[in-house]
């Protein structure tokens, strides 16, 4: 049983890194959002498994947030924004897929080297989890710097956050995990509303009706 527990946790965390790689080379916003939903789904499975093997029922809450909010609500909301803004056909020029992937591999190697060495004393499950989590965080940051579009930057940020939740749940008995994941969800909700206002402004110049009134008054 301990073998199974460890191997499954390993598989799920590794799967998250893999999905992070897939996120890196998506050049259409729709497919990016779909892959992100998958990312959040894998995270939910991983957190639920940790809740099971650590006997920590409160982690199920975090898993539920990951599944309900991040895998369903946020991608759907972003999808609607993308449609409303009419940017769903846009193809994003990613810096050069080959280079980004090479950079990603280097980052994963770096996080393995750093964390496996630094956490050599910690228990093996936490150690592996932390190194995978760091890889997910770094890949997310790489995605944020290689993208120009606000929506894909947000997806990058959300994958960083998924990596953090993975790290927090891997650390046995860490308090405040649920609170932190709730705080993060609020942050993301704010960001999503933020993009909406921001992008709309860029298109139609303003969302503030009163600013329009003032503008008209000046012309008269």
């Amino acid at each position, binding site marked *: 049983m301990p073998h199974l527990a460890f191997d499954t946790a390993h598989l799920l965390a590794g799967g998250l890194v893999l999905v992070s790689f897939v996120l890196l080379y998506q050049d259409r916003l729709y497919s990016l959002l779909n892959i992100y939903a998958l990312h959040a789904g894998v995270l939910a499975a991983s957190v639920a498994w940790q809740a099971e093997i650590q006997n920590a029922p409160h982690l199920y809450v975090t898993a539920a947030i990951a599944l309900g909010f991040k895998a369903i609500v946020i991608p759907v909301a972003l999808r609607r924004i993308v449609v409303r803004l009419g940017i769903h056909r846009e193809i994003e020029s990613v810096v050069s897929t080959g280079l980004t992937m090479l950079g990603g591999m280097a980052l994963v190697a770096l996080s393995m080297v750093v964390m496996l060495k630094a956490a050599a*004393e910690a228990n093996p499950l936490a150690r592996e989890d932390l190194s995978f989590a760091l890889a997910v965080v770094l890949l997310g940051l790489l995605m944020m710097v290689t993208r120009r579009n606000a929506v894909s930057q947000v997806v990058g940020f959300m994958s960083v956050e998924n990596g953090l939740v993975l790290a927090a749940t891997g650390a046995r008995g860490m308090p405040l995990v649920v609170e932190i994941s709730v705080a993060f969800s609020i942050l993301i909700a704010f960001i999503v509303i933020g993009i909406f206002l921001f992008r709309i402004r860029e298109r139609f110049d303003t969302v503030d009706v009163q600013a329009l009134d003032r503008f008209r008054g000046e012309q008269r």
Partner: protein
Amino acid sequence: MIEPVADILSAVLLIPVIAAALLALVPNYRLGAGLNVAATFLTLLAALSLFVGARPAPGAYLFVDDLNVVFIALNNFVGFTTSVFSATYIGHELKIGRVTARHLRFYHAMYQVLLFAMNLALIANNIGLMWVAVELATLTTVIMVGLYRTHEALEAAWKYFILGSVGIALALFGTILVYVAAQPVIGEGADSMVWTTLVAHAAAFDPALLNVAFVFLLLGYGTKVGLAPLHAWLPDAHAEGPTPISAVLSGLLLNVALYAVLRFKILMAANAAAVAPGPLMVTMGLASALFASFMLYRRRDIKRMFAYSSIEHMGIITFAFGMGGPLANFAGLLHMTMHSLTKSGIFFTVGHIAQVKGTQRIADIGGLTETHPWLGWGLVLGVIAIAGLPPLGIFTSEFLIVTSTFNRAPLLAILLAAALLIAFGALLLRLNGLAFGAPRGNSAPAEASYIPMFVHLALVLAAGFYLPGALVAWFQHVARLLG
């Protein structure tokens, strides 16, 4: 039985929360501004009373010790004076139609939430709670930076948001690593995140994990301090938001983030095998100071210029704490206090100047000492202070930092002195155009509240001549705590 001091401790948090709820309901802006001032004044009184009386034993979530009480007092003092300034400033913004009464209701409520978040970050004894509080403070300032809803303001808020989020993400990873390091020693659960417990057991932690954790924490919270290379949000956020927020950002929020770094520095110092945190802080601090002092020359926007000056000074303070030792720490604390007072004082002045001139462009502002003598001379005094000229308080602290570094690492001291001189040149160059010569640009009569800005500048001036013995003794004591 609740200890009286515990009551005060919760008052520092509860007054802003209650005030925020009230202010969200008050439609009249005059009443709102008045309530805002009253609430910050009450919080200031509560914060000051933390100095007297016995302290309660550190709790699982909140505590007060000799280090954070200094930060809390400074935080609430500047919070109070800024609310006085803000009442006049924001009234003018309402009159010229840059904001609406509804925005103001929101603004006042957010101001209190921000003070609550900063106070919470300062008295949190739990590193997770501290992280949450810093995140809350970031969120509220993001919203306030975007208050004017102009294209530039929203862009600045977005940039701040993204960079701030990256910063807090890195800081959270560092926090998790500290927990992982602590968990085998202290055990699972909330105890392994309580700062006082962590420090007591730090010697037994795995040093390799602590090292990695500190790098993440320094980069993460360092983003919020405005240290290069992650400073890019700071000038935009300062320039595009309402000026009271620029004052609070520069004077307070940067300090709160630095306080978080200092807490973890103490933790690192308690573990003999871990890498010394000093050199990392010295490098980042020096790089920020040098970089910002060069950037000062090319600025065209007056608020942006002082924002770069904040990066420079936060770099100097981080440098001083990185050098460590009683003298450098003392100088760092003094410099932090002086910078908070001076920079928020300058922003009060600049806010009114931008209002009477109707612009923030340096090229359109000139001859202020002739047209608006109070504002003009206030600016002169402020810039002289921030540039580090002799009779004022910042000179004392910069002198202490440079001389104490000369004793230990002459090369670093030369670099630091170079940064100071370069910044000095840029500031005086711009000051000449702004304050003297023929008047340029619009000239509306000033409706300013001079009291907050002159109180700040007078305090800085007084500190240059005389520091009360009790204050010196307190800072020396805290400097020893910082190691």
